[in-house]
């Protein structure tokens, strides 16, 4: 295995190890933290596909994270209340089952990515950044002003959704579900990047004129990557809502978009398991620095500044021996 692959596998193994140790030591809170890190990592894996490999600076991925979360929240709360989610064009009931919620979350997030991507990819550079940010903000304001699902206060649903054969309330079992999904996400990401599609995506990023000259249309490639990316991040959102049994417009905020980007950058963009390193580091920082001061995000900001200005390869970049982006 290459050095990069060893690091990727090592990071994933570290995550599992941390949880097993916590389970043995009777520290369920640590397991919950690790679950949060894994969910954030999955969100970052989605973004990394378009950001790291596609070179598209999407500052609106919270849109997909939030859509995934709200799908989970809406389906679950309707399952609790017994009222159908929709009666037209066909009756759709709520659901408490993860296996039903996840496809729905991914589908809707994917559709949103298709719409947002089709419009945003008509632009490039700075415009693209601003437009993706704007569309996510649009959804944020919509969620705030739509009263049916809590508006600004958000939506709580008190039971954790179900998975056949498992007790999802048990922290380590829920973590297992998340870890498997993260693993699948990493695997899918690895396959895509090494595939013909991945080759075209990377070419479209590095030399778009050349891609066109060999008969590849960057728009279609990028839009497809954007949709896949949105679906992965949407799944992470559904899991996040389940973790907290709560969803609110905050999941759609620009701050969330920035955080997802931070996960990817801290870990190193364009590195497969970068988001895992980044999310883990973020959760760790939040926990450690948060204990020092409630203004810990200022310190995070300074750290981020230092990394951007002086160590652009991120954590994985440093592990891999220096700057290699």
């Amino acid at each position: 295995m290459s050095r990069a692959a060893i690091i990727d596998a090592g990071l994933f193994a570290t995550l599992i190890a941390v949880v097993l140790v916590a389970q043995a030591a009777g520290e369920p809170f640590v397991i919950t933290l690790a679950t949060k890190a894994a969910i954030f990592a999955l969100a970052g894996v989605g973004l990394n596909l378009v950001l790291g490999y596609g070179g598209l600076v999407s500052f609106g991925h919270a849109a997909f994270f939030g859509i995934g979360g709200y799908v989970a929240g809406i389906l679950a709360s309707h399952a609790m209340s017994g009222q159908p989610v929709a009666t037209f064009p066909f009756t759709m009931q709520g659901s408490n089952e993860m296996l039903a919620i996840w496809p729905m979350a991914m589908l809707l997030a994917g559709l949103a990515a298709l719409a947002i991507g089709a419009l945003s990819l008509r632009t490039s550079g700075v415009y693209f950044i601003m437009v993706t940010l704007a569309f996510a903000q649009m959804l944020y304001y919509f969620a705030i002003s739509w009263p049916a699902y809590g508006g600004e206060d958000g939506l709580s649903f008190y039971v954790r959704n179900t998975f056949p054969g498992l007790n999802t309330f048990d922290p380590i079992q829920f973590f297992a579900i998340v870890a498997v999904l993260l693993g699948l996400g990493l695997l899918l990401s690895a396959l895509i990047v090494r595939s013909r599609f991945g080759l075209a995506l990377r070419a479209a990023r590095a030399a778009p004129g050349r891609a066109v000259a060999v008969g590849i249309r960057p728009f279609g490639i990028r839009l497809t990557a954007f949709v896949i990316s949105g679906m992965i991040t949407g799944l992470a959102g559904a899991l996040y809502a389940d973790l907290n049994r709560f969803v609110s417009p905050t999941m759609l905020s620009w701050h969330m978009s920035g955080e997802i980007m931070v996960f990817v950058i801290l870990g190193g963009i364009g590195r497969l398991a970068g988001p895992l390193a980044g999310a883990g580091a973020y959760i760790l920082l939040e926990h450690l620095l948060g204990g020092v001061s409630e203004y810990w995000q200022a310190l995070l900001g300074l750290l981020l500044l230092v990394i951007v200005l002086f160590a652009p390869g991120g954590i994985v970049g440093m592990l891999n021996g220096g700057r290699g982006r």
Partner: protein
Amino acid sequence: MSGPILEVEGLQKSFGALKATDEVTLDLRPGEIHALIGPNGAGKSTLIKLITGEIAADAGRIRFEGQAIDTVDAAGRARLGLARSFQVSQLVPDFTALENVMLAVQGASGESFRFLRPALADPALIEPAAFHLAHAGLAGRERVAAAALSHGERRRLEIAMALAMRPRAFLLDEPMAGMGADGARDLTALLSDLRAEAPILLVEHDMDAVFALADRVSVLVYGRVIATGSVAEIRADPEVRRSYLGEQA
């Protein structure tokens, strides 16, 4: 197929008040090398962009193998077999020479929406790519990153990628750009061989290469073709001498 491979008819393009392309008509016949020469600012780049499909003409028609391609986009024209090389090398710097050509093979096949099988281990991409690299004189340099190749090797890589496009015609934009005398000579020999693959529309400043290679020459000045003919005819043409070649040609 006996008619011209590429026909450009009455092409016009203006940028505001500037008429960059002024009623340009020319064609590219099978088996020939047709050179396009002219002073800087003559509109050669604009003409290339019109033919490759990067920009749309204000008026006129372009036909490729008898079919009108005015509404076909640049990627589509590449897939039809209009293989181009760039004046300033456009390579994927992090890919190796082989990977760059594999990209071209993939693009020509139109099968970029494959998500699961690894591309870089696929013999369907590797074998043709290695073949074209060798044809362009880069055998042995397959695993070198494009960014690490010498200038001359990069120009050859451009040719290799054009070869990988199943070319029905080549549009080569100053392939000699930046080449020293030896490199230019070798590249000239390569281009002469290329003629057997497909006809070449060759945009060039290097007059030695043009006179050595061209079957026909068209001269572009201020967006207009002022003369088309054999090398000897062009060298003797008074208007060409006045506008471009100078009296000593």
